[in-house]
Each structure stands twice: as C-alpha cells, then as structure tokens.
C-alpha cells in the first residue's frame, strides 16, 4: 500500500513538469470587480471573457489569472506583484482605473513583466518612458481635444467645468483647460465635487449663474445621471453639454431620455463605427450578456486579444515586450500600434470618437470619416 502510494506520488511528480511545460500561456488580468467602479469593471470582465472565448475557438489556449483591485491602487499593486512573483504570468492586462493603472505602471519595469492598460486615461501612465507599459486606449487629453474640435466650428466663447475629484476627473480637466486656452475659450466656472453626494444643486447653480456656452463634465456611473437631473431641475441650459467618457457613455445614462438627449460625449469606441468586427462584437455581446457593451468592454476585448495573441507566440515576458512593441493589429478598436510620440511611450495613437445621444441612442457624429450623423448644436431642452 505504502509502496503504491510512493510510486503514485513519484509518477505525479514526474508528470507535473511535463504538464507544466505543455501548459497554455499564463496571463494576469487586474480589474475592479468590486468597489465603486464595479459596474464599469463588469464591462471589462465581460469583454475580456469574450476575447478568451474567441481565442479558444481558434485553438489558442490561455491560463487567465484574475485579480480584483476593488478600485484601490494599493490592492492593484499587490495584485500585480502576486501575479508576477507567485503566479508567474508573463503579461498583465489591466487595471481599469487611472489611479490603479498609474501605480502598477510604476513597477512594471522593475519586474519586467509587460502591462497592457486597456482603458485608463491618465496621461502620466505612458509618459514616464516605462518600457513595459503599453496602453491601448487614448489618454485623457484626447477626450477633451476631440470634444472641443467637434464643437469648434460653432465658435463657443465660454466654458465651465464640473468634475469628480478623481485622478481621471482632475487630469482630464487639466488638459481640457489647455485645449480651451488654445481655442480662446474663457473659463467662467470650475466645480470639483466629491463622488456619491446626493446634492450637487449648489455647484450647478453657480455654473448656471456664470452662463457658459459649454459645460464640460467628467463623472463616473450614476453621478452623471444625478448631475444631469439636477442640472435640468435648476434650469442649467448651455449651448452644449460635453461629457468626457465614463458616466456619460453608458447605456443606462442614454436611456434617461429626459435628461440625456443631445448630450455630447467622447468615447473610445462605438458600435456604429466602421472598424472591423465592431458591429458584430456589439451584437454578440448583447446576445450573451443582455446589455449594450460600453467602450470599456471593447477596450478589454481588444487588449486581451492582443496580449494573448502576442504572448502565445513569444512565450516569455522579455520577448512579449518586444512583440508588443513591434506588432500591428487591426480589430474592433481600429488599427493598433504602440508607438512613441509627443512625450508618450508605447502608446496607441487611438482616434477617439464623438457621439451625441438622440432619443436614448448614441450616434457617432465626429470625426466625419467614421460617422453617419451630424452634430446638433446648440443644445435644447
């Protein structure tokens, strides 16, 4: 009996390394599954899961190790360190929020395990020259610049900012101010708020008193709905509401037709854009999860696809870094290439889209080569 057991163990020990060497490529995925950002996190989870499924269908096996950061940079860093030291992954996709991604990025060169950021917008993430940090989505400055380019032909004069006191909010507004200065816009109000409050009326009343042409908003999730409801309540009616990503690009927001109509927002992705597979991705996503995919889902899908495709041919972290740096892809996020330009390193120069809500539906209105509809200006209740 004892002998049998020993021989069994011996066989298992012998067999295990063989199994390990034939094992699929190991990739980490850090995301906000719980916490304040969980709703958007779910979109990333679903997008990444669809990518893994599609790759499996093509015969590419992957061993995905998922970690939750709860939206907290401290947890994100711990997750990354666990993934690279204990799980031995050769590449990591994530984290979602700018705060988390920025902290993790600062350690990627130390461990030399490539990090592919799918949807975090803070510019700094790819501005420090880190060799092992790659970003698929366009950084925060593009959110504001593309929105302002879209309304520039209508010659607005003044602008007010209303934004969440988060990394994304502050950095987006900072670059928006630079872009506004270039366009000759005068800043008439600047309201930074703490998330999750029930009452933003006083801040919005201040903005209304300043009577701006443009109101530039940065909010996550349900705060966007709250702000727009209260804006309607107090009768704030500028020539255009410009929503920079996040809360203004969710299906839940669009469905609140009473407050969402004609709101303009910048996004990384829409389902009516003419990039290969985008429309089909949206259809399959809706069929599988019963809701519209946000741009985060598309970003996570494409980031996971690129990471796994590259990792499955390179097999080691060092070669993966070189593979990501050299490769070009063309998928649901349009052409992707990680390039060095304008102070950025390994940054995909992703063209952002401007969309406007019309009766609960997002319609791409800018740039002209990607859109079928025209922007409606000025805003009307």
């Amino acid at each position, binding site marked *: 009996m004892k002998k049998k057991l020993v021989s069994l163990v011996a066989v298992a020990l012998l067999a295990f390394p063989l199994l390990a060497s034939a094992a699929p490529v190991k990739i980490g995925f850090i995301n906000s599954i*719980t916490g304040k950002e*969980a*709703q958007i996190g*779910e979109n990333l989870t679903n997008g990444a899961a669809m990518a893994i499924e599609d790759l499996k269908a093509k015969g590419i096996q992957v061993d995905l190790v998922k970690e939750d950061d709860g939206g907290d940079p401290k947890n994100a860093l711990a997750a990354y360190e666990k993934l690279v030291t204990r799980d031995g992954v050769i590449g990591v996709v994530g984290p979602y929020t700018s705060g988390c991604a920025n902290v993790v990025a600062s350690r990627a060169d130390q461990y030399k395990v490539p990090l592919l950021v799918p949807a975090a917008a803070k510019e700094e993430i790819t501005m420090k020259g880190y060799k092992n940090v790659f970003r698929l989505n366009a950084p925060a400055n593009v959110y504001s610049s593309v929105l302002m380019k879209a309304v520039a032909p209508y010659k607005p004069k003044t602008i007010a900012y209303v934004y969440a*006191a988060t990394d994304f909010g502050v950095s987006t507004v900072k670059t928006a101010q630079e872009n506004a200065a270039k366009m000759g816009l005068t800043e008439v109000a600047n*309201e*930074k*708020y*703490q998330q*999750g*409050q*029930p*009452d*933003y*009326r*006083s*801040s919005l*009343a*201040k903005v209304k*008193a300043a009577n701006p042409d443009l109101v530039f908003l940065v909010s996550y*999730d*349900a705060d966007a*709905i*709250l702000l*727009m*409801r*209260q804006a*309607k*309540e*107090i*009768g704030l009616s500028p020539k255009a509401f410009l929503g920079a990503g996040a809360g203004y690009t969710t299906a*839940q927001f669009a469905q*609140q037709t*009473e*407050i969402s109509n004609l709101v303009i927002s910048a996004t990384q992705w829409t389902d009516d854009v003419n990039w290969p597979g985008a429309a089909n991705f949206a259809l399959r996503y809706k069929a599988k999860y019963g809701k519209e995919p946000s741009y985060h889902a598309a970003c996570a899908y494409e980031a996971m696809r690129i990471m796994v495709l590259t990792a499955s041919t390179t097999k080691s972290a060092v070669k993966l870094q070189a593979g990501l740096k050299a490769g070009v892809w063309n998928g649901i996020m349009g052409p992707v290439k990680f390039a060095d330009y304008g102070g950025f390193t390994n940054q995909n120069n992703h063209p952002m889209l401007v969309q406007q809500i019309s009766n609960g539906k997002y319609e791409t209105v800018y740039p002209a080569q990607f859109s079928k509809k025209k922007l409606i200006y000025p805003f009307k209740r």
Partner: protein
Amino acid sequence: MLLFLQALLSGTLTGGVYALAGIGMSLVFGVMNISNFAHGDLMMLGMYLAYFAFTLLHIDPYVSLVMIMPTAFLFGFLMEKVFINRVIHHPHQNQILLTIGLGLIMSNTALLAFTSDPKILTTSYSSSAFNLPGGIFLSVPLVISFLITCGITAILSLFLLKTSTGMALRATSQNREAAQLMGINVAKMSAIAFGIGTALAATAGALIAPTYYIHPLAGHSFLLKAFTICVLGGLGSVAGAGVGGLIIGVVEAMSSTYISSDWKDVVVFVLFLAVLLLRPQGLFGKKGEQS
C-alpha cells in the same frame, strides 16, 4: 443673493432627509444606549423596497411608504428581539461589532442579490422643479420628501409626548433602571424603539431614492452623516437630530456655493469639531445625560 437663497433652500430640503436618518439613530441611542452601525444599511433596504415597489408593483415611491414603514418596523422589532437585546448590557465594543456585522450581512446580501449596478428610480417628476419667482428652482421630489419628513417628525413628536407608549419610551431613555422600577417593560420599549428607528431609516432611504441612485453600499455615506447629525444635535435628542440634519444640509450647500463642493465635508467636520469643543454634549444634549 440668488445663489444664497438657492443654496439655503436646496440645503434645507436635503437636510430634511438627513434629519430623518439622524432622528431614527438618535432615538435608538436614547432608549437603548446603542450606536447602530447598521443604520445606513437599513436605509439602503428602504431604497430597494421603494425601487421594487415602483418597478414591480408600479407604486409611487412616496405612496409605497405606507407599506415600507410597517415592514421596516417589523423587521427592526424582530432584529432587536433576535440579536440586539442579547448585547444590551454588554460593553459598547460588543454592540458596535454586532451592528457592524449585521450591516455587513445586509449590504453584502444586497450585493449578491441585486448586483453592484446602481439602480435609478425614474418617476415622471424625477427631474422636474418648482420655478419660484426670481429664478429659484426647487426640486419637486425633494419638496415632497421634505413635507413628508415634517409630517413624520410631527407625528413622532406627538407620539412621544402624548401617548403612554411614547412616555414610557422617554422614561426608558431618561433612566432605564428607574423606568423598570416604575413597572415599564423596558425590553419591549427597546424593541419598539429599534423598530421605529428602522422604520425611520427605511423611510429616509425611500424618500431619497427618487433623487439619488440605489446601490448596495449607498447607505454607508449616509451612516457617517447620521452619526454626525446625532452627535451634533446631542445623542439621544430627537429635536437635536432634526435641527442637526438641517444644519448639515445647509452648511453643505453653503460651502459648495461659497467655497467649493470639494471642501464641503471639511467645512462640515470643522463645524462639528467646533460645536463639540464648545458644547461637548451637542446642541440639544443635557450635560452628563449619557454616563
């Protein structure tokens, strides 16, 4: 001037709902000498009750209060009988751990059952406003909430002042042992107080639901507010909690208007500390009442 009036009025209206949350917590503390850390989660349950009454049964959130209040009272009453009364004579840390634990069970059960997607309760009047002369706008749902809060507070005061149960509750609040010696069933009073506290928390949740979003962790930000309100008004003082709620609502609105909404919590807590320095017993608390 317009901004000042707008801030004063919206602050008062929002403060009304804060007050209701604070009153429930203060009543529980007064009668039972227990800090209820599950209060915010009880508010969250009220929000979901209002949401499901609206989406599934098509009952207006304000009308659904008629169902929510007795349900929440019963829930609180039973919760006291099953859990809370076991720690009533125990040290404070045990009571705190128990209520935190109950709160965690509620919020995490809600997370599993309802997911972390925030739910939005959209009524026909969700973003409508009364337009006052001079360009001041008052949110319709907030005005209704405020009026209901006033009504409930008035009924509660009458109940506490005029009925024998109310007097027994106040007697228990003043001196538990003496009340017991006078033949008051203090165990029953505790259960009633906790039931009323729960009903008020759930009502506050239901009242805020049409103007806020409904999320399993939404109660947490209100828990801290309810605590601040209770301590500011004087722990155990129902009138104090009412006034405390209004003060916090107005101070928040004023500091967003004149400083920055980013700073409103700082202003609230600086004021809170100042009150505690000058009147450690709170605005309406009696000296040495809770020893």
